[in-house]
């Protein structure tokens, strides 16, 4: 154990002496967290819209003003040429085109129904889907209001009597930052820690100092533990800093126990640390280590459920996510921070992560070679 202490002491001396790495380790995650949390957003605002109103009646104007009042739509131009409207979609200038035919109001009042044409620019399918949803909502709203304002129409109610309203649990204000910040924090810290550990050991290999260590009686587990402890402490520190900033800047809710959050973080970090060690065992140069670490981290990030729901992945991908530590992290943070889950609720995530961390580090110790073949 004394040997491990000497290794830890040496590692901390080197880390604190490196005047470029230390600030990077702290500034990078904070910067990324601020930037990504503001930028990564599911909500679509300011959909560019063009309206062609050929009716110019009270009803058509009421419909237009409903669209312009919505924060989701931004009316760019209006005109009377359908061809022009279609062309601006083709040129990708607008996302949605609404055409109100002549006699819109007359048809509504006389026939009890009228048609409008919505044309969506589906170059970005997600955006088009959202635009369709928002527009549908506005049209339904218009219908209900128009019927109630024109008693002539009440005889033939156009819609059912049951109105569906929505309320969002756990994120009542639909603030996506609340949703994203804990996950982004987990990703960033994983990325940094995995890279730091992998590169640190490979750097010793490149410098030649690892050979000097390999010729001493240091045991394999002592060597790994001597690297593990410093980076584990650093990861917990960065995590604390990140959560504090998340609370101060984004006001992320902390419904669950803070102890649980830290307990889990402490169990989670060994997963990425161990992965870094494992990579370093097989990489000869920092370049190789970097590519390999990047390969895994990229897959982990894209499949962790932060950007696309895990449930919508094909079944084999969902099964493969058992090996994705960041997926556990994202799931855990959402449950504890946003829903206030307790230990009983998250046991199913906590234990696998603990086993994962121990397993991957054991594998790293096992594959570390003091004597090469």
């Amino acid at each position, binding site marked *: 154990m*004394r*040997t491990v*202490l*000497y*290794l830890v*002491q*040496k590692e901390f*001396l*080197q880390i604190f*002496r*490196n005047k470029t790495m230390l600030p990077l380790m702290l500034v990078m995650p904070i910067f990324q967290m601020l930037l990504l949390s503001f930028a990564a957003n599911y909500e679509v605002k300011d959909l560019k819209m063009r309206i062609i109103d050929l009716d110019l009646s009270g009803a058509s104007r009421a419909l237009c003003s409903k669209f312009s009042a919505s924060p989701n739509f931004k009316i760019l131009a209006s005109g009377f040429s359908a061809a022009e409207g279609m062309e601006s979609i083709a040129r990708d200038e607008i996302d949605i085109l609404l055409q109100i035919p002549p006699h819109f109001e007359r048809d509504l009042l006389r026939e009890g129904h009228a048609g409008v044409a919505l044309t969506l620019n589906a170059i970005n399918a997600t955006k088009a889907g959202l635009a369709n949803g928002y527009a549908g909502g506005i049209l339904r709203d218009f219908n209900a209001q128009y019927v109630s304002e024109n008693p002539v129409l009440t005889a033939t109610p156009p819609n059912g009597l049951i109105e569906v309203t929505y309320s969002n649990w756990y994120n009542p204000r639909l603030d996506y930052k609340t949703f994203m910040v804990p996950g982004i924090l987990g990703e960033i810290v994983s990325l940094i820690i995995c890279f730091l550990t992998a590169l640190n050991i490979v750097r010793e290999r490149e*410098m*030649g*100092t690892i*050979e*000097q*260590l*390999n*010729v*001493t*009686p*240091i*045991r394999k587990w002592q060597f790994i533990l001597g690297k593990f402890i410093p980076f584990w402490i650093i990861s917990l520190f960065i995590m604390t800093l990140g959560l504090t900033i998340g609370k101060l800047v984004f006001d992320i809710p902390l419904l669950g126990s803070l102890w649980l959050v830290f307990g889990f973080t402490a169990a989670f970090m060994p997963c990425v640390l161990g992965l870094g060690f494992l990579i370093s065992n097989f990489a000869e140069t920092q370049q190789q280590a970097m590519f390999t670490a990047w390969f895994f981290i990229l897959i982990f990030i894209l499949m962790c459920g932060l950007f696309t729901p895990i449930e919508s992945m094909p079944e084999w991908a969902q099964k493969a996510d058992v090996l994705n530590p960041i997926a556990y992290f994202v799931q855990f943070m959402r449950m504890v921070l946003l829903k206030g889950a307790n230990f009983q609720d998250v046991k199913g995530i906590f234990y696998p992560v603990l086993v994962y961390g121990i397993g991957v580090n054991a594998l790293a110790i096992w594959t570390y070679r*003091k*004597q*090469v*073949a």
Partner: protein
Amino acid sequence: MEEPVIFTENLTKTFGRFTAVNKISFSVYPGEIFGFLGANGAGKTTALRMLSGLLKPSSGIAQVAGVDVMRQPEQVKRRIGYMSQKFSLYEDLTIRENIRFYGGVYGLKRAVVKQKTSELIDKLELGAHVDQLVRSLPLGWRQKLALSVAMLHEPRIVFLDEPTSGVDPLTRRQFWDLIYEAAHQGVTLMVTTHYMEEAEYCKRISMMVDGKIEALDTPGQLKKQFNAESMDEVFRKLARG
């Protein structure tokens, strides 16, 4: 006859189809300075790395301090010191921190490390630089320091892999003084080098060509055997075949 501290028989290392070390056999006795000479790529470093437990031998027998290198490489490591051509101290630590670290790793007591540090600093006349980063020291100083650090735990056998590579002649001379001093205290040293004049400093020399030991004797005997004026000439005659 004394018991050899290093003993090999048909020690071989192959990398795929390439045979780096080809059935070498020799014995080294306590207090000897045993030189491994040869061109780059002759297999000197490979042989040394096998003996120090860093590289697994492909076949043959190798014993260091009575321990079988094949079976118990970790036991060998407790008994030896090792310094390689690659720089082996931490450049971003000070002299004092390097000594403390390696002393600690070898399990020396804190008080012993302290005492060793001051002894070493006096011997190498590094007093004014003890809290300087190793990075800022000239190469020759670093190599002398590295040798002293490799012997902190007082091993009976020390392996030196091209320790004076790239060092100026004067410092090289001082370095050899350190080696002599250790040998005088009964330490067995095994040195690889490609500086032929350094060969004269060794008690016995093995000349390696293409993985094989082509000649093994004292410098004087080798010169007589090859009818040569200097070790350089011996080597050239050998290499020409």
